[in-house]
């Protein structure tokens, strides 16, 4: 079998899912095994608003803010990813001639995570321990399930939630889930699509794309702030997990995956 490609899209509303799906169809016609991993923050936020679930964010002591996934938010995340974002991708892939099978981390124990039982935040200037957060980090991928589907000619379409040690669902970062999937499959390439042409030397200048971005083996990556810091962490985890090549590329353009594979991307090393 040819080298596997893992593509991560979504989250950013600017990424065009149809263009991604057409590119994936092209790869599958060349018999390349492809796994699509997706988030869906626009769907999550839209559905939360519609259901009257307040979006809570927490500020960590270092000033970084993150979604607070309380029990109700986790349900909205699950609904939005499994019931809105995933069917849209499955429909687009099917219309491009691809047999796609949607999975969350709960299917066959696909994404196992360690739940963060406690983390810290600053509320009203006082530091607190947050204990009702249903999120965690992927620790194990059931790559056998993915290989079974790939061998049968399907494109697995994977998203959070993952399943925690206690069997309950937990939210998890989709970029890092994609890295774990790519590492679990020993993928040749991981393509992280985003709403920018790659990693920018100057975040305000889209012309300042770095062809290569080196990330130290540990510690805070460069260019943090916004989503790019977390993407670089995911990229590092994929590389450390044995993925051949990690590309951060523009999801807004036509032919987003093809262009990334052809070099229009930042390669993380």
């Amino acid at each position, binding site marked *: 079998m040819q080298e596997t490609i893992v593509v991560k899209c979504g989250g950013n509303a600017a990424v065009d899912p149809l263009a991604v799906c057409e590119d994936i169809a092209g790869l599958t016609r060349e018999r390349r095994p492809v796994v699509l991993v997706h988030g869906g923050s626009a769907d999550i936020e839209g559905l939360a608003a519609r259901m009257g679930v307040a979006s809570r964010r927490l500020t*960590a002591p270092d000033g*970084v*803010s*993150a979604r607070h996934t309380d029990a109700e938010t986790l349900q909205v995340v699950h609904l939005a990813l499994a019931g809105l974002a995933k069917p849209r991708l499955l429909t687009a892939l099917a219309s491009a001639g691809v047999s796609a099978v949607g999975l969350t981390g709960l299917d066959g124990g696909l994404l196992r995570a360690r739940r*963060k*039982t*406690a*983390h*810290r935040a600053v509320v009203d200037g*006082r*530091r*607190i*321990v*947050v*204990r009702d957060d249903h*999120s965690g*980090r992927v620790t194990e991928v059931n790559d056998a399930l993915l290989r079974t589907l790939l061998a049968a000619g399907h494109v697995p379409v994977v998203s959070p939630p993952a399943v925690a040690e206690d069997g309950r669902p937990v939210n*998890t*970062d989709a970029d*890092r889930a994609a890295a774990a999937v790519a590492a679990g499959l020993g993928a040749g390439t991981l393509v992280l699509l985003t709403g920018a042409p790659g990693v920018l030397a100057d975040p305000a200048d889209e012309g300042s794309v770095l062809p290569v971005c080196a990330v130290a083996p540990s510690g805070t990556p460069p260019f943090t702030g916004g989503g790019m*810091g*977390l993407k670089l*962490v995911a990229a590092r985890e994929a590389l450390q997990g044995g993925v051949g090549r990690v590309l951060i590329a523009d999801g807004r353009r036509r032919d987003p995956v093809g262009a990334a594979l052809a070099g229009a991307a930042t390669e993380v090393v």
Partner: protein
Amino acid sequence: MVICPECESSVALAEPPKVNEIIECGDCSSELEVLTVDPLQVALAPDVEEDWGE
């Protein structure tokens, strides 16, 4: 005031104390979490993993 479970010093709290609030022991620098406020109980705060905003 509560007693630090690590070094047995007295530790002062902000008023009113809040459940899950973290305070630091002035003597041994342990971080303590307020578990309940009535009665006032504290324990060592859980260690926190490195976290990139996940």
